[in-house]
């Protein structure tokens, strides 16, 4: 059963980031919300790690409104990330069989 993984903290602020990436199975999805959106900025080590995840047939999403509330442009996103709004967030929850919020 494909799982939607949710991260909401910066990659270096806790162990959640590494734990989440390690726990993703093929076909799972990842959605970055709140402070986790910083992890998707191009040029960051975290974005590189996330691209490796995407290469393993997972999809990586970023919540657009959390980029905007941090005054970050979509153009700063590293390649391989898809932006979603809250309606898209709801669709992702419906699409995957279960969700897990790593905190």
């Amino acid at each position, binding site marked *: 059963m494909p799982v939607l993984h949710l991260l909401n903290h910066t990659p270096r602020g806790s162990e959640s980031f590494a734990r989440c990436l390690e726990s993703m199975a093929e076909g799972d999805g990842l959605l970055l919300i*709140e402070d986790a959106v910083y992890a998707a900025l191009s040029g960051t080590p975290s974005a590189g790690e996330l691209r490796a995840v995407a290469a393993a047939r997972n999809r990586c999403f970023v919540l657009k409104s959390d980029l905007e509330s941090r005054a970050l442009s979509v153009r700063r996103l590293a390649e391989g990330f898809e932006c979603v709004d809250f309606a898209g967030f709801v669709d992702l929850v*419906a699409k995957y069989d279960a969700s897990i919020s790593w905190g």
Partner: protein
Amino acid sequence: MKLAIQINGHPASSMAATTAYQFIKAALRKDHQVILVFFYYDGVFSRLVPAHTEAETAAAVAPPDWAALVSEHGLDLVICSAAAERRGLAALSPAAASDLMRTATPVGTFRAGGLGQWVDACLRCDRFIVFAS
């Protein structure tokens, strides 16, 4: 799709309630059903309404308007009473005004409840989502 939502984060130090609120509004707009919003751990502090200066409210992400969700969509917002009491918040009482609170949520917005309601919703829903601290 039937959704059950759990909110764990403290409204003063986490975005959990704010994100959950926007998620719920989007789900309702898509005609999904939200069968329970359960406030647990430090999420029970959602009952306290923080004071914001106008400038702060303009700059920051708008705080959740739970009362509007209840009056417009009849949502079931349940605060775990055991978690609330462990944090010095009493079970909900009919009186809305309080000398310790700057502003009070309208009476009837939140309902006191327990983990039984949470499990029940987890069994009945199609999707269960946690908004973490």
